[in-house]
């Protein structure tokens, strides 16, 4: 829709929209395209964690070199964006486009049936709710309803939506690195491993793989997910299906922690473009206030924009979309991933320890954290 509107207004710069070809991940597809020198001019769905590798490869243009970049940054970027998305060479190669904060989706009917009046706000409350939700409904001594579900296969990107999401919350908004140095908050890591350990030990999360959506089938009561779920459920859920969002549970004793992981996506221009100026013009168009409104209306995704909730253009939208408003409120407290090399392998290390420390409980959470730090250091030293 945006592309059609642009093409109608700009006969001299015609844009051709192409979905990213199927692959394990869009990063994999883009890396292959860089190697084959077949990148598009612009990509609007880039994971910030991979941009450092693209910069090293000289595959993306420094957007901050465009004359009017600063005015765009001033008008759009929330505080701290340049620090978080900037490159070590002082340039900015990506425009953070959407935030995708992770929150807790829950099924209010299941909660009400279990006598739970408000969504759990702390780990203890979540575990208490889990003990009421998790049940053997048909009397065969096997659970067939659970509090939540995670894909437990040791796949690196899965751990962004459980361990890392909760780590960001438990650490008060920290990531793994500070000024390029590994600085894992070990206390927060222990707490998170311990929380998931309790969930798996209590049988509140199943050790299984679902082919059908377990949320829709009423098999699980909560899921940690992003705003994209709102649009997906609108298209796929039966009319009687009810759901709500709530902040992620926080560690006991922590007064408040609005922080969560955000699966940010950025826009970048690839350096093999023959039309850098035209590409830049289109990128600026993609992040206008009006385009951001369409991103909300069509995609149900939260743009990275300062003053999103106070801007008069979006007031009506958020008044009519209470659930997405919740995500917009959390957006300033979302944290992405660090701009370091070997990020996938670092998350793979998390996946290994998540299995050992939480799912299979081979060793204590403290030991899982100790091993995680050791492995992360080895990977980081190797990659740097």
């Amino acid at each position, binding site marked *: 829709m945006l592309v059609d509107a642009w093409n109608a207004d700009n006969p001299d710069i015609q844009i051709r929209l192409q979905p990213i070809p199927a692959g394990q991940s869009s990063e994999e597809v883009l*890396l292959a395209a860089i190697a084959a020198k077949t990148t598009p001019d612009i990509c609007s769905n880039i994971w910030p964690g991979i941009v450092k590798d693209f910069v090293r490869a000289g595959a993306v243009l420094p957007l901050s070199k465009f004359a009017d970049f600063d005015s765009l940054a001033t008008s759009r970027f929330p505080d701290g964006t340049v620090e978080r998305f900037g490159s070590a060479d002082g340039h900015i190669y990506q425009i953070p486009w959407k935030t995708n904060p992770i929150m807790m989706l829950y099924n209010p009917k299941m909660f009400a049936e279990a006598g739970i009046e408000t969504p759990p706000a702390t780990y203890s409350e979540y575990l208490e709710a889990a003990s009421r939700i998790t049940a053997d409904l048909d009397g065969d001594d096997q659970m*067939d309803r659970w509090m939540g579900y995670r894909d437990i296969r040791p796949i690196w990107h899965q751990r962004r939506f459980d361990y890392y999401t909760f780590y960001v919350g438990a650490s008060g908004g920290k990531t793994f690195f500070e000024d390029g140095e590994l600085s894992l908050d070990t206390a927060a890591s222990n707490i998170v491993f311990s929380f998931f350990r309790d969930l798996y030990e209590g049988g509140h999360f199943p050790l299984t793989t679902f082919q059908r959506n377990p949320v829709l089938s009423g098999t699980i009561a909560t899921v940690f997910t992003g705003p994209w779920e709102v649009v997906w459920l609108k298209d796929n859920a039966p009319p009687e299906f009810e759901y709500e969002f709530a902040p992620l549970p926080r560690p006991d004793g922590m007064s408040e922690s609005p922080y969560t992981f955000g699966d940010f996506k950025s826009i970048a221009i690839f350096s093999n473009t023959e039309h850098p100026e035209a590409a830049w013009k289109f990128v600026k168009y993609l992040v206008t206030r009006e385009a951001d409104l369409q991103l909300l209306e069509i995609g149900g995704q939260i743009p990275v924009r300062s003053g999103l909730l106070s801007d008069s253009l979006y007031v009506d939208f958020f008044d009519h979309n209470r659930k997405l408003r919740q995500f917009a409120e959390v957006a300033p407290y979302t944290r992405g991933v660090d701009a370091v090399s070997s990020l*996938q392998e670092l998350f793979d290390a998390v996946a290994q320890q998540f299995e*050992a420390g939480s799912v*299979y409980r081979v060793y204590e959470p403290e030991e899982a954290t100790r091993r995680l730090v050791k492995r992360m250091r080895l990977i980081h030293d190797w990659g740097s």
Partner: protein
Amino acid sequence: MVAPYIIHLAVFFGYPLIFALVLVFHRWDIVTEMQFAGSRNVVRLLGDDVFFQAIMNTGLFLVIHIPLQIVVALFLATILNEKLKGRGFFRTVYFLPVVVSGVVITILFQQLFAFDTGFVNNVISALGGKRVPWLVSPQWAMPSIALMATWKNVGFYVILFLTGLQNIPESLYEVAETDGASQWQKWRHITLPMLNPMMVTVVILSTIGGFSLFIEPYVLTGGGPMNSTMSGLLYIYNQAFYFNHMGYATTLGLFFALVILVVVLVQKRFVETEAY
């Protein structure tokens, strides 16, 4: 006259091999320039516990898979060699999984073997048994994969054994019968030795096939739980295409190729000696 062969060898064997050897001493992530890494890749390999665990896992897979494969394939081939009604149909049925995509079969088994909701456990549970943690226990996961791989591939080896059985001259059995040999004696002293060349082929093919174990753990378990189904090939794939460590992945690949070569050579010698 020999130019096409030389060109083919140079392009498809020589160049990749030389490039692989170069990569062993470099770091390369496909998109940036290669960096000389000296012996870092080799040093890392020697201290890489997960890779050696992956080799051991592959060994465990072979130990379960090969004997099971041979026993089941030989058993089925012996039955299908008899003049049974509808044997053409059964031969087709046993071969069917071989031609079905590995990913499709793996997804099917993911559903069958699911711990909480899987069909197999539901049946066991309905019969009063305890659920088996097929894919979610470090002890069970690899045997489960071996079971699945056997089910998928056995049809191919049935055909090989069937070919071997049909090539045994009938006269040998007639002579044995004249001498008063029992069914078991005929099978032990005629069928089995005569199947030896096919046995060697089956063992070597299933060993090489076993070393290339990839789709099953990739789709079913991601190498878990606790790396118990991490195969050598899956680990190399992860290093190459998840983490973009092309140099290190190549080092692992060459080492793994050497392991396969040694195992196959030892096995060939052992099987040939044993069977006679």
